[in-house]
């Protein structure tokens, strides 16, 4: 059987003739897609973790000031929230990202010992903390990182806490966190009498009323009862809280820059390739290749770079997420779960990058005069 030449085989041979350049170009798009997979994947997983944090505890509404990062509400508002008819439970809380050791920082929550959110945790050892005492419970991931167990001590912001229990919460935001009494957290944060937010659990929705409508009604009741606060559905707070918004912005900003560099790399490679192959394109045109065939050839080459770079990038991004999830500095906020849709998005972005980057070189190649191209040295 004689050797067959397919259109894609021809495109592959064209790419492989300049191996180093092709590999470097692949490196560029791999980095871009890898950054997208890792960073945007991280920020989305971060958002999902927040949602799970709320849903695991049964939180329906978060009551905050305008800005979640700097929000500061009087703890005394708790009584007003509880007085709202549809509210079943209200839990004041503070959270912050704190350095526990030079290598490990973690989310630290301050909850009252009676908070309904503590009910959602599964205790692997020890017990709950008590209000008014320097006690803390650790998520199992953080306990492993710090090599702490119930009964050990843990200095936080100059105060020595006793680890009284180890729990499993089901999200990285809890399992990599410290939870202490709200009063202790207020003390080490200089926020006496203040809280970051109130998490609210509503009474079951009356039959026949949709959950969304019921939550909206409760939000209005809370905002009417306490002017100046925002009562947001848990899903909105998960998506729009300051940390998640910051993570999204950094992830998209960084990966956009990396993707742009990758696209420019492909564009440069394809432009150089068309320039170097001017005479060959003239030969193809002399053989009767239509301009459209030349465009298709060059776009196939550029898209192949995008697809292969995209696949490498997906692997690289996933590996980066695994590494981040294993590092003590980031383990508490990084989840390794990546949705298939996110990977599909990455691949589509890679393909679009190839097509975009190849468009102008392809157009230029198709519009070369055959006779001029044949004369090209």
């Amino acid at each position, binding site marked *: *059987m*004689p*050797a*067959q*030449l*397919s*259109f894609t085989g*021809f495109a592959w*041979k*064209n790419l492989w*003739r300049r191996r180093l350049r092709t590999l470097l170009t692949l490196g560029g798009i791999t980095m871009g897609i890898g950054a997208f997979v890792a960073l945007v994947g991280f920020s989305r997983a971060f958002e999902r973790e927040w949602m799970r944090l709320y849903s695991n505890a049964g939180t329906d509404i978060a009551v905050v000031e305008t800005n979640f990062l700097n929000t500061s509400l009087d703890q005394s508002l708790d009584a007003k929230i509880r007085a709202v008819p549809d509210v079943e439970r209200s839990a004041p809380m503070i959270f912050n990202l704190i350095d526990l050791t030079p290598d490990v920082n973690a989310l630290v929550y301050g909850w009252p010992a009676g908070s309904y959110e503590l009910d959602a945790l599964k205790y692997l050892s020890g017990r709950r903390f008590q209000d008014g005492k320097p006690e803390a419970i650790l998520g199992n991931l953080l306990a492993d990182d710090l090599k702490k167990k119930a009964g050990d001590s843990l200095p936080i912001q100059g105060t020595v806490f006793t680890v009284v229990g180890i729990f499993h919460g089901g999200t990285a935001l809890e399992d990599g966190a410290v939870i202490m009494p709200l009063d202790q957290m207020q003390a080490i944060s200089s926020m006496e009498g203040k809280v970051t937010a109130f998490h609210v659990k509503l009474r079951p929705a009356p039959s026949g009323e949709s959950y969304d409508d019921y939550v909206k009604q409760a939000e209005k009741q809370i905002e009417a009862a306490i002017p100046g606060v925002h009562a947001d559905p848990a899903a909105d707070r998960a998506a729009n809280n300051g940390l998640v918004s910051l993570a999204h912005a950094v992830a998209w900003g960084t990966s956009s820059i990396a993707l742009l560099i990758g696209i420019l790399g492909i564009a440069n490679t394809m432009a150089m390739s068309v320039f170097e192959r001017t*005479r*060959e394109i003239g*030969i*193809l*045109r*002399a*053989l*009767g*290749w*239509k*301009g459209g*065939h030349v465009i298709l050839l060059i776009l196939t080459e550029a898209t192949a770079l995008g697809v292969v770079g995209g696949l490498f990038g997906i692997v690289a991004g996933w590996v980066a997420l695994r590494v981040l999830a294993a590092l003590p500095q980031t383990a508490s906020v990084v989840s390794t779960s990546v949705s298939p849709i996110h990977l599909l998005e990455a691949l589509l972005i890679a393909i679009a990058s190839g097509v975009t980057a190849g468009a102008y070189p392809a157009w230029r190649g198709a519009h070369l*005069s*055959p*006779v001029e191209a*044949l004369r090209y040295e």
Partner: protein
Amino acid sequence: MNSPTPGPILEARGLVKSYDDGRVQALRGVDAAIAEGEYVAITGPSGSGKSTLLHMLGGLDTPSEGQVLFRGSPVGKGADLDRFRSQQVGFIFQAFHLLPTLRAIENVQVAMLGLTQRNNHRAERAAALLEEMGLRERMNHYPNELSAGERQRVAIARALANHPAILLADEPTGNLDSVNSAHILEILRGIRQQRGMTLVIVTHEQEIARSAPRHIRIRDGRIEA
């Protein structure tokens, strides 16, 4: 095949090709007709416009004025011109113009890639053509592994790939020694006889010119009487 059919297969009417805003004229009103199955040599000194005329006749370039007709119809522009080149014309060049990254058999197939044929059909046809050119043992070699004569035979096989009606050769023996030149000429004449193709050769070599029954002599962009 020595009996030409009645109408011209190719006709040049008032071809003018100018460059540099008309300051340079390569062709200055060329009229010529080539009959179906005819073997014509276009001769003339260097720079006389003979290659330019060949490019116009084969649809590689478009005239500034005038038109080229194929079997009585203008060859058109754009996609029509591409179709004319791919389906009716086979080009052979002095410099062979093989693609260096492709094997001989792939160089022949590449001419067929633009047309809708299956991979195995293209490969089989390419193999048959190379075998016809006496290159059965060389079809998996790259151009830089072939002699000049072999490269030109690959180029001829490529030119024949899409069953063209016309074979246009621009100085096909210009880069060959006398033995290979004679061989290539013999191949071209054999192809014309066996397939009944129209053969137009641009040459400045007297021996090749003498082999053609009719000459078109060009000087300074005009056909000499």
